[in-house]
């Protein structure tokens, strides 16, 4: 969809952009996970999140969420 093709394999999440005012604000994964659940769910369902991998490339929301889930289940720092 809005995703660009990423070169290489095994990407990791780096940052998330969330709507703020008229634009977007970049937040860390910890800050994102610390947001209230209902706010996160709304952002996800309204597809207003922008996930970026460790190379700064935009990835799809679904792929970002999958990576986030994997990181949290592995107990990575991103788990918040």
């Amino acid at each position, binding site marked *: *969809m809005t995703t660009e093709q990423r070169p290489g394999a095994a990407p990791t999440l780096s940052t998330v952009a969330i709507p703020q005012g008229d634009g977007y604000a970049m937040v860390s994964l910890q800050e994102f996970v610390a947001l*209230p*659940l*209902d706010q*996160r*769910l*709304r952002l*996800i*369902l*309204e*597809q207003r999140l922008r996930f970026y991998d460790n190379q700064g490339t935009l990835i*799809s*929301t*679904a792929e970002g*969420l*999958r990576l986030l*889930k994997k990181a*949290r289940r592995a107990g990575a720092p991103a788990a918040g």
Partner: protein
Amino acid sequence: MSAFQALGDAGAPVATRADFSADDREQRIAARADALFRERREHGLRRLDRVFPLLMLGQWVFAILVAVLFSPYGWTGKVKAVHLHVYVAVFVGAAITALPLALSRLRPGWAGTRHVMAASQMLWSALLIHLSGGRIETHFHVFGSLAFLSFYYDWAVLVTATVVVAADHVVRQFTWPESVYGVVNPEWWRFLEHAFWVVFENAFLILACVTGLRDLKTAARQQARVEVLAESDELKTLALEMALDEAGR
């Protein structure tokens, strides 16, 4: 926080709240449909730009064979000899094919490329008609070529082809009628009769071009809708999993 708390402050389910972004979803579908349409259109145009030079190379071989096997008889009776038309087939055929071949490599997908293909294909018709001594059956090559050119879904290409073949008929009718009609004294309006049948075919081919483009857009929009809805569905699943994960902690 429980999964139930995730429903939102006003008590409305979050999933339903997402539905109020239907306009946003329609915009996303439209943007994706546009991208898909452009991608497929570009792919189709580039593919045809690669195929036409192959056809022309085939026609070149065919023209040389016609010149060697048929043209001496067609033009000089039963005496078989290396005729000027063999050289015409080789060198004029090469000249007609050179530019389309170059453009297919250098500028595939460019609008000018397909107009050159159209003009060159019509020049190929003209050459084959000439080599066959103006046989009326060889004129069918024009109609087949127009049909193939319509695969571009660009009616302007048909206009270019028509102008080229009509100009060829007009010029040769009044300068060398035998080479285009096989007779030395055709009726003055013979080129108009041929042009009429070309326009007749074009009417249907232009309709096919317009319909084909519309179908391509419809297919792109349908695929975009499926993709966006599938993505939306997947996001709902992932969001639900996130909520359940946190509820289970």
